[in-house]
């Protein structure tokens, strides 16, 4: 009894609540727990999941990035256009990653070096980059010449599609980075107390720049996979991604005021968002009601988590 309570109220409480919800959904929603549906579900959260990895760092360091959706679209475009132009897919991929990283780097420089508010900066780059994607493509989808590009998304390893593997690898990688490396601890430190970190000799400015650059790079990965999945570069792709990703993170217990983050929480946050969408479609809930249900699920998830942690008597 007591150990059950401990599990429920412990650090991993959200995971436990989530697991319980998962079991309930599996039992009551037909077609939910099939291999096909599970893979479909995981595929549908690949973009959110991948971007959430670095968004976690960004939020944990008390920053904020609204430009992720635009970067995903832009680097997807870059991948396709450069592949087409050079005839080489690897060159296209490198170009996409580079584009992503450069935008992220610029974000970082402006925010950390010139000390401009992160919300405004990334809101600005969100628009600038989206504009560039539209200008580059004249607002049109760009098709992929070499069908091998599709294989990125269609290929499978042990029956599981590559994008899902990539997402899983990134989960593990960034989970490790957060908890076990100097980079991760410094991220949490500058979020928890930037002044103290600076006084302890952490190079806060550089850390922030790196985190944004990394965020951009990872958006590049997401952009490539997305372009491959939809077999074209679309300048309008991934609008509104920023809010979904940030919600997934916050749902997973990442604190917006910095210093607190856990990969397991973020994964759960991402999955909750994906499952909600999936189940509503499986249950054939009408589009307008889906808005309401989506909102309620968000609320209930944080409410449960909150009850749990306040029962555990933690300090706000």
């Amino acid at each position, binding site marked *: 009894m007591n150990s059950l309570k401990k599990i429920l109220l412990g650090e991993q409480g959200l995971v436990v609540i989530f697991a319980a919800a998962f079991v309930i959904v599996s039992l009551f929603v*037909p*077609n939910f727990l*099939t291999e*096909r*549906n599970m893979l*479909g579900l995981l*595929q*549908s959260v690949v*973009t959110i999941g991948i971007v959430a990895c670095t968004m976690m760092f960004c939020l944990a360091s008390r920053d904020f990035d609204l430009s992720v959706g635009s970067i995903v679209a832009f680097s997807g475009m870059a991948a396709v256009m450069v592949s087409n132009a050079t005839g080489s897919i690897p060159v296209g991929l490198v170009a996409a990653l580079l584009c992503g990283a450069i935008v992220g780097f610029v974000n970082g420089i402006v925010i950390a070096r010139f000390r401009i508010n992160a919300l405004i900066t990334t809101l600005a780059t969100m628009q600038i980059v989206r504009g560039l994607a*539209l200008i580059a493509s*004249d*607002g*049109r*989808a*760009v*098709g*992929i010449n070499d*069908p091998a590009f599709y294989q990125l*998304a*269609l290929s499978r390893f042990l029956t599981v*599609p590559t994008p899902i593997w990539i997402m899983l690898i990134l989960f593990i990688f960034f989970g490790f980075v957060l908890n076990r490396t100097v980079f991760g601890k410094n991220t949490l430190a500058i979020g928890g107390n930037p002044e103290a970190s600076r006084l302890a000799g952490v190079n806060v400015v550089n850390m922030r720049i790196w985190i944004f650059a990394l965020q951009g790079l990872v958006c590049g990965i997401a952009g490539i996979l*997305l372009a491959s*999945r*939809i*077999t*074209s570069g*679309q*300048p*309008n*792709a*991934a*609008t*509104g991604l920023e809010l979904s990703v940030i919600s997934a993170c916050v749902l997973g217990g990442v604190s917006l005021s910095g210093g607190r983050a856990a990969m397991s929480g973020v994964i759960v946050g991402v999955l909750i968002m994906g499952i909600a*969408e*999936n189940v509503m*479609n*499986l249950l*054939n809930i*009408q*589009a*307008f009601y*889906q808005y309401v249900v989506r909102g309620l699920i968000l609320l209930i998830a944080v409410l449960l988590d909150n009850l749990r942690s306040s029962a555990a008597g933690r300090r706000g």
Partner: protein
Amino acid sequence: ADVKIGFIVKQPEEPWFQDEWKFADQAAKERGFTVVKIGAEDGEKVQSAIDNLGAQGAQGFIICTPDVKLGPGIVAKAEANQLKLMTVDDRLVSADGKPLEDVPHMGISATKIGETVGQAIVDEIEKRGWDMKNVGAIRVSYDQLPTAVDRVEGAISVLKSAGFPAENIYDAPQAKTDTEAALNAATTVLNKHADVKYWVAFGLNDEAVLGAVRASESVGIPAANVIGVGIGGAESAINEFKKPSATGFFGTVIISPKRHGYETALNMYDWIANGKEPEKLTLTSGSLALRGNYEQVRKELGIE
């Protein structure tokens, strides 16, 4: 005086509207007037766009409104700014839903386009000799956009009257109007009905149908078992046709941005410069383009 006309559209990022603008510009160049292009995604933006046109001394404008119910407000605003008004694509309606017949309009009814899509699907089903009972239909829906509802309902009405069983039509609501959202929604439908062998798909536009086609590929349904028919005919559709082997994206109903952009601009110019009022209602039609004939169809419509 110099003639200056406005061209307001509801979704400036969409290729369709880019094309309308392009053709309007072409007309302007030929006749020597100016086109001011403004994107207005909602009612409020429309209001300020009209004010803005008034302020910069335009004499009239053409608009594809974000919502047809904005009609009375647009008419009032145009009058207040002494601007001539013409609509394109979507026709304004009054509070009770009746079309505002005084406002000249060029367009195509959303329901009609939908019906063309439905007809194309029915024809192809018959050609491939599928039994409609064994076919599933994905309705990629975006119900908060009235035009989108009208289009898919148009398609459904044709399917049903051709004997397509209503219970085989499955809703795949997209959260946003991009391909990824359609892809995710359609994937769920396909996985839920894993036993269905043949599929057809339709939706708001090419992007929506492409999402459904991508979903069918990702769950391993062969292209020959899928008939997707889109609407629009811009690059995303053409890219499909250019792919080395045929995909489930069977065709698209192309509507001509040339007429909508070029002719409306000319009409407005004539109205202002020569006092020649345009026709109250001009309806254009959509043409089905397939992998084999899209280049020709586009040529006929004056695109490219």
